[in-house]
């Protein structure tokens, strides 16, 4: 048995668990760990400029690759800075391991310099967390943490380690296996329930599949396509479910919800059977709960039993992993055409196309997204911030490859875009990654441009510059009687700012610039920032106002279309 310090044990364990990158920031109590880092050349440490960004980078890395992302911060403020990022990953169920240092064991609970009770603080926003009090517990803790973060319904796990535990020497023992008696995710799905679900599907006249993030994390796109094709069931996704079902597939009807496609919302509301897979009936997706499609029957397939029946009563619950459950379900499902039903949805789509971009001399944001889609042949990985640009990016780019859209859906964290794109680019070397940023959200984490330069990462930054907290402006216009308060944002000169960081920058001032700046950015091998000066007062449509039903989806009013 080898003797090691706690710091060595941690890094060795991480490496054994397949970790290759750590997004982190040093400080007093993690110095023993940083002191040890050079002994582990296989672990690439990326120095961020703010710990929040480290957590978003780990999250972006995880979402792009499917592998656990790792971030690291010092005690106190380093740890609390991680919190927004950890919560972002908690709400969207992504596997992130957050490691924090803490004050020495003898000082714990004494309110010493830079002590924060980070396990207490993150208890409700992690799948599990640990305070490690002995160095010899580190290997098992890392194994358990990886196991918990990446299996079942994924989620963030935090490990807090006091400074002297990093320094303590002990025997390193690598556990052969993890066995947690309180944690055994169900994968297979109950055979009887699967048969009952198939019966309901076979009887349904107007079935619809609503697929969520779980399809992506369950790696079940192929299985989903097979189910949909066999029984000819139209598929709509949730916002986070985008790219789980290929959007160019003839059975794809976009995504539903507050800014979903009109026809997707109507189809969800008109269906006699909803087959919900790996989604959690969020209010942003379903509209007002008690007004959603009164007669509908729901088959709910999810790996997390607590999601089933949480917001809606379920006719057939199936707890399991989509990849295991769907093939069995497909086996029992009859081939069907559902001609009339599909014709009905197609008709609604013809009358209410939702994704048609109107002719305009202005630089419409929808047009920018669509041009980006065309120029990148639909192949880029798109990472967004939160706000109007996020919705346009979801609507007007078409995603066919799972993990192609990376966005903070559950928590809606502005400032996610740039660091998450950096994490995605680290996970996808050589692939095209675009960060679609709000002009305001970008300003929350723009300091991370320095990381692009440090690490030579060719992320393309597209700032959708409308001079506003656009989504908030839209709500004030529509629901607060145009009483615009604190929504116009003054900005730096984004081009100069990027240049100050040593990043190539372009500006598109008119519609005619759009295509050429995208081409120029793509041709350049390094990172590029583009300041797209989009139309300032464009709104996102369609829209289900907060508290309204999906059936009450509003489309762009005539005066806006005429602008």
């Amino acid at each position: 048995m080898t003797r090691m310090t706690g710091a060595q044990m941690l890094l060795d364990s991480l490496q054994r668990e397949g970790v290759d990158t750590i997004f982190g920031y040093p400080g007093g109590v993690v110095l023993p760990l940083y002191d040890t880092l050079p002994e582990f050349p296989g672990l690439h440490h990326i120095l961020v400029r703010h710990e929040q960004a480290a957590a978003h980078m780990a999250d972006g890395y995880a979402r792009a690759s499917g592998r656990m992302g790792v971030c690291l911060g010092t005690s106190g403020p380093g740890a609390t800075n991680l919190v927004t990022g950890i919560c972002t990953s908690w709400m969207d169920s992504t596997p992130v391991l957050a490691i924090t240092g803490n004050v020495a064991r003898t000082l714990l609970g004494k309110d010493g310099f830079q002590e924060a009770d980070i396990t207490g603080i993150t208890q409700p926003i992690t799948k599990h967390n640990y305070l490690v009090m002995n160095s010899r517990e580190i290997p098992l803790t890392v194994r358990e943490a990886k196991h918990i973060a990446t299996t079942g319904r994924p989620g963030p796990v935090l490990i807090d380690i006091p400074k002297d535990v990093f320094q303590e020497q002990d025997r390193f023992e690598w556990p052969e296996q993890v066995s947690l008696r309180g944690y055994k995710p169900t994968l297979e799905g109950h055979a009887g329930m699967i048969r009952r679900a198939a019966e309901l599907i076979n009887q349904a006249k107007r079935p619809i599949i609503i697929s969520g993030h779980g399809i992506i994390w369950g790696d079940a796109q192929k299985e989903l396509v097979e189910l949909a094709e066999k029984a000819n069931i139209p598929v709509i996704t949730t916002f986070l479910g985008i790219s789980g079902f290929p959007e160019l597939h003839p059975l794809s009807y976009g995504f539903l919800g507050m800014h979903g496609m009109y026809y997707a919302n109507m189809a969800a509301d008109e269906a006699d059977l909803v087959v919900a897979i790996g989604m959690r009936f969020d209010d942003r997706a379903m509209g007002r709960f008690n007004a959603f499609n009164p007669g509908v029957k729901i088959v709910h397939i999810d790996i997390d039993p607590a999601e089933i029946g949480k917001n809606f009563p379920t006719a057939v619950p199936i707890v399991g992993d989509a990849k295991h459950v769907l093939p069995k379900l497909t086996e029992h499902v009859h081939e069907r055409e559902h001609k009339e039903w599909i014709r009905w949805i197609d008709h609604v789509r013809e009358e209410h196309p939702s994704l048609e971009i109107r002719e305009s001399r202005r630089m419409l944001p929808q047009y920018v997204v669509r041009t980006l889609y065309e120029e990148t042949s639909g192949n880029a990985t798109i990472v967004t911030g939160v706000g109007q640009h996020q919705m346009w990016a979801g609507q007007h780019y078409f995603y066919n490859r799972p993990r192609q859209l990376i966005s903070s859906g559950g928590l809606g964290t502005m400032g996610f875009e740039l660091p998450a794109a950096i994490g995605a680019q680290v996970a996808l070397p050589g692939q095209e990654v675009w960060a679609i940023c709000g002009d305001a959200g970008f300003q929350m984490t723009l300091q991370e441009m320095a990381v692009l330069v440090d690490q030579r990462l060719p992320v393309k930054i597209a700032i959708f510059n409308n001079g506003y907290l656009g989504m908030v402006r839209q709500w004030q216009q529509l629901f607060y009687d145009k009483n615009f308060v604190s929504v116009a944002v003054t900005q730096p000169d984004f081009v100069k700012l990027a240049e100050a960081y040593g990043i190539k920058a372009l500006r598109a001032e008119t519609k005619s610039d759009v295509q050429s700046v995208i081409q120029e950015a793509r041709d350049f091998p390094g990172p590029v920032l583009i300041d797209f000066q989009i139309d300032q007062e464009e709104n996102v449509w369609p829209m289900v106002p907060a508290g309204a039903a999906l059936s009450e989806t509003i489309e762009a009013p005539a005066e806006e279309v005429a602008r």
Partner: protein
Amino acid sequence: MTGLGPSNGSRPRSRRQHIVVAIVEDKPGVLMRVASLFRRRGFNIESLTVGHSEAPGLSRMTIVVDGESAPVEQVEKQLYKLIDVVKVSDLSQEDLIARELAMIKVRCNNLNRHELLEIANVFRADVIDIASNSLILQVVGYEDKINGLIKMCEPYGVREMSRTGRMAMARGTKTTTVHEAEPPKIAQIHASQGRRVEGELPFSSD
């Protein structure tokens, strides 16, 4: 036995309450995780008791939840999501025995002490301390009984009271236990003596 008779514990419970028993890892922070879960999800705890269980390393929690604040199914499922929670049983529909212990310090004097002792006797409460102007009653039983005793003590002056909250156990063979697999050696010994193997134990856990 204490209590007013064998049927006392299983008298119909208020419909609004659920009794949930959780077997949890005996680790620091577990109580906080459970309490935090209930707070966050808006489930109101009426009482929570926790202590060692029959298995080393595992504690048993009995949680009485206000049913109006929480569908019992969600309570169970959310508890299961905690890694340190090993097993959850809903005893609400069970034929069960529920008990609570209370200590009540009542004011008294030479003139009325006798009355109080008689009341205690009727409720089969034990007098566990007597001083010149107070005494402490200890009573075990179902909630109604304890409430009844408290009410009787009130006119004398209840100076202090401490209640454990409810503990519960299903009647008969049903348990809320976690059965770890028997080590092969032990199983062999049992088998050689003609005893049933694990899994066929008469005390089923579900």
